[in-house]
C-alpha cells in the first residue's frame, strides 16, 4: 500500500464520502471519483495528472452535505485558493491534500485555506512552452497584426464552450453568453460573436486566472486561448504587483484601489 492509498483509505474510513483524484487512463491520468476503500488502490499521482480537479468541487451534484477530499496538484491548489477568495468554498466539507514534490510521495493534508495560501507563496507559476513560443511570435507584431492574428485564430472557434466547462473559475450559474435581455453576445459561431465571447472570457479572468491551462487543453480546435489570460496575469503583475498563481488577499486588482497603484494610464 503506498502512502496515497493509505491516506485515501483512512479518509474514507473516517467519514469522507468521496475522494477526487486520478486513475490510470488510456492516455495518462484521468479524473477518478473514489467512493470506497476498495477503489483506493486505483488512485495514482504522477506528472500526467493535469486535469484541474477544482472544476468538480463547485458541482452541487458532488458537493452536498457530505465531506469530500481532493488529491490536489499545484494547479488545483491554486484554483482552490482563488475560489476561496471568491467565497465559493465550503471549507467545512472540503479536505485538501497533496503529494509533496520534496518528499518521496509524502502526503500533506492542509488544515485550511490559509495553509494552502502559504504553501503556494514560494511556488512560481510555470510558463508553458507553447506560450513562450507565442510570446516570441507576437512580440514582433504590430497592434494590427496581433489583432488579425487573433481574429484568424478565433474564426475557428465553434462556440462549444469546452473552455468554459474546463475552467475551474468559470462557475457562474448564468454565464454572460446566456444573458439574452439584452443579448450582449451573439450565441452562434461567427467572427464577431466569437471575438465578443473570447474578449469577455479573458476580461472576466483578469486577476482571477491561475494559469492552469485547462482552457487551452480543452479547446477541440486547438486555439491557444489560455495565452491571453496568461498575458493578462503578467500585465497585472507589472501594473499592480499581483503575483501570478496566488490568490488575491484583499480583493481583485481591478476592483480595488490602492494609493500606490499606477495611474499613468489616466490622461
Amino acid at each position, binding site marked *: 500500500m503506498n502512502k496515497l492509498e493509505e491516506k485515501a483509505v483512512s479518509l474514507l474510513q473516517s467519514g469522507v464520502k468521496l475522494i477526487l483524484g486520478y486513475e490510470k487512463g488510456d492516455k495518462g491520468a484521468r479524473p477518478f471519483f473514489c467512493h470506497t476503500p476498495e477503489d483506493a488502490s486505483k488512485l495514482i499521482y504522477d506528472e500526467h495528472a493535469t486535469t484541474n480537479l477544482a472544476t468538480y468541487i463547485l458541482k452541487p451534484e458532488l458537493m452536498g452535505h457530505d465531506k469530500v477530499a481532493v488529491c490536489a496538484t499545484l494547479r488545483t491548489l491554486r484554483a482552490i485558493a482563488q475560489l476561496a477568495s471568491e467565497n465559493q468554498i465550503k471549507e467545512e466539507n472540503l479536505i485538501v491534500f497533496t503529494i509533496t514534490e520534496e518528499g518521496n510521495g509524502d502526503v500533506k493534508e492542509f488544515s485550511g485555506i490559509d495553509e494552502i495560501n502559504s504553501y503556494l507563496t514560494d511556488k512560481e507559476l510555470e510558463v508553458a512552452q507553447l506560450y513562450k513560443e507565442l510570446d516570441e511570435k507576437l512580440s514582433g507584431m504590430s497592434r494590427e497584426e496581433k489583432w488579425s492574428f487573433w481574429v484568424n485564430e478565433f474564426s475557428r472557434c465553434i462556440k462549444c464552450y469546452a473552455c468554459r466547462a474546463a475552467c475551474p473559475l468559470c462557475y457562474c450559474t*448564468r454565464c454572460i453568453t446566456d444573458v439574452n435581455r*439584452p443579448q450582449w453576445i451573439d450565441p452562434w459561431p461567427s467572427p464577431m460573436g466569437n471575438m465578443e465571447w473570447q474578449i469577455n472570457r479573458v476580461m472576466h479572468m483578469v486577476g482571477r486566472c491561475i494559469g492552469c491551462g485547462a482552457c487551452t487543453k480543452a479547446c477541440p480546435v486547438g486555439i491557444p486561448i489560455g495565452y491571453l489570460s496568461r498575458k493578462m496575469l503578467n500585465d497585472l503583475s507589472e501594473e499592480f504587483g499581483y503575483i501570478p498563481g496566488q490568490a488575491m488577499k484583499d480583493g481583485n486588482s481591478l476592483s480595488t484601489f490602492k494609493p500606490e497603484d499606477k495611474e499613468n494610464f489616466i490622461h
Partner: protein
Amino acid sequence: MSKIGVFICHCGENISATVDCQRVAEELSKVDGVAYSIDYKYMCSDPGQTLIKQAIKEHNLTGVVIGSCSPRMHELTFRKTCAEAGLNPYMCEIANLREHCSWVHEKGEATTEKAISLVKMLVEKVKKDHPLTSIQVPITKKALVIGGGIAGIQASLDIANCGHQVILIEKDPSIGGHMSQLSETFPTLDCSQCILTPRMVEVAQHPNITLYTYAELDSVDGSIGNFHVTIRLKAKSVDPKKCTGCGTCSSKCPQKKIPSEFNAGLGTRTAIYVPFPQAVPNKPVIDKEHCNYYQKGKCQLCKKVCPTDAIEFDKPDELLKEDVGAIVVTTGFNVLKTDFFPEYGYGKYKDVITGLQFERLASASGPTLGEIRRPSDGQIPKKIVFVACAGSRDPAKGIPYCSKICCMYTAKHAMLYQHKVHDGESYVFYMDVRAGGKNYEEFVRRAIEEDGVKYVRGRVARVYEKDGKLIVKGADTLLGGAPVEIEADMVVLATAGVSNNGAEQLAQKMHISYDSYKFFAEAHPKLRPVETNTAGIFLAGACQAPKDIPDTVSGASGAAVKVAGLFSQSMLVREPLIAVVNRCAPPLFSTCVGCFMCETACPYHAIEHEEIKNRNGDVIKTVAKVNPGLCQGCGTCVAFCRSKSIDIQGYTNEEMYAEVVSLLNN
C-alpha cells in the same frame, strides 16, 4: 404596446434656431410605438406643461420623451408634470437637444437628423422603462461640525438652536480659531474676543452641542442622512472631569520656552498649557512633543503639584464612533509665514512680521499686553511699513488669487498703530485697495484722512537691515514708478491666506473636491455656495477661500440652514436610480454567485451579504444585496458583475442596449 408621447421644445430659439423642431416631431410620429408627437415653443412653461398633461390623459400615454434642454435643468419639472397627469415619473425621459445638439452644431440637415436620432434613442429606452418609486431612507438627526473657529461655532449654534444634536470637533485644545487671535475687527473696531467669547461659552453650555476639543476626524463612511464617522480624541493627558483649571501645573512646568501658537510665535507657553485665558474648555493639555516626561521619560512635576490628581500620562488616543446625518466642514485657513519671502529676508529679520503677528501685538491679551512693541528689542516702532499683497495676486509665487481680507486688516492695523503711537508714521504699500463691503471703503478713507496713514501704490521690491533699521525699497507707480525708500522700525507683511494644513487629506477622507490651492470646492460657486458635490457634506468659512468674518458667519448660518432643512424631513426621499441585484425563482434565487467582487469595487460600501435560507434555517446560498440607503447609482458594480446580475434601476442593461441599438440601426 407602448403609447409614447414625444414633445419637442423650441426653447425659444435656443433649439429651433439650428434644429427644425417641426420636422423632428413629424419624423418621430412615424416611429413604432409613438402615439403622439408635437413641438412647442416653451415646453417648460405652464401652457407647455398643460399640453403634456392633456396628451397623457387623452392618448393614455405609457411613456413620454421630451426633446429639450439638459435633464439637469428640467428633468424634475417634466417628471412632476407626468406624475400630475397620473404617469409614473420615471416613464419620462429627456433627450438633450440643446446642449448636445443645437448649441454645438450649426443650422443644417445633419443637425436636425442628429436631433431625430437623439429623440428616437430615448423612445426606444422608454419602451423598456419600468415604473419606479422613490426610496425613503431614515435620517440620523445629528450633525458633525469639523473645526471650532467662528464658522464652526456659528454653524453649531444655529443647528443646535433648531433643536438638533451637534457634535463639534476641534483639533486644537480650545475652540475660537483665528478670530480669537484678532485684536479688533474691521470696520467697527470692536474687540474680537469681546464678541467671540460669548459665542464660545454658549457652545460649551448648549445642551444640544457635544464639544470635543483636541479631536480630529479619523474616517467617514456612509452617505447623506446616515454617515458613520470615527473621531480621534487625541490624548490630552489631563482628565477634564477632575481638572478644575486652577493653572498650578502650567506655572510649575519647566518647559517654558515653547513658541505659543496662539501668539503666532511671538510669545511662549509651557508644555502643559491652556492656549489663552478665555479658552473653552479652560482645561490644559500636555503637548507631548515638548513635554520632558514624554520626551525624556522623567519630570511629572505637573502630576506632583496637581491638587486633584487629574494628570494621566500615557493614555492612548481614543476612537469614538458616531452616526450623523450631515457634516459641516469649517476647517478654516492659514497665513503664509514670513520665511516664504526671500525678498523680505526669508523670515530672518525679527521685525518683519505677519499681519497675524501684528494682531497679537495689538491685542490686550497678547505678549505685549496691547502695546505695539517690536519683537527684536521691545522698542516702540516710530515708523512702520505695511506691505499688502505679500504673496497674494502673484502668479510667480503660485498664489494668483486675492486673499480678500488683507486690504481691510492692513487699514485696521495702520489705524490701530496710529491710535496707539501718536507720533508714529505708517506707510501702506498696496496694489489696489479692495474695500468692497458694507462700510469698508469708508473705513479705509478714515485711515487715510483722519488717521493720516500714508498709502503708497506700488510693490515693495526688497527689505533689508541696515544700522538697526529696516530699509524698505519700493516704487510709487502713481509717480511714474519713482523709487521710494523708507527707513522703517518694523515691517508688517499682509501674507496671503492659504488652505489649512491637512486640507487635502481631509478632503480625500470625505470624498469632497478641492481646487488647485487645496481650498474645498463648492457644488456651484454661485448657486450652491455652502454645499459640496457630496450630498450631506456642507462647507462654511475660510476653508473655501479666504473670507472675512461677516462672510464666514453668513456662510456658516447658510450651511446650518441646509442641515436644518435636511433634518426637517421625516424621511430622506431619494431617487430610485440605484443598483439592484436580481432575484429569481428557486432553486436559483438569484443569478448572483456571491463572488463579492462588487463589494470591493463599490466606493460607497453599499454591498451587503444576504443569506437565502430554507425553512429549516439552513443557508442555501449567500448572494449580494445593495443597501438602497448607501448606493449612489454609480454603476461600478454593474460593470464588474460577470454574470450581469446587477442592474441600475432606470439605466438597466436592457434600456442602455435599446438606446445603442437604436443609434446603430439609423
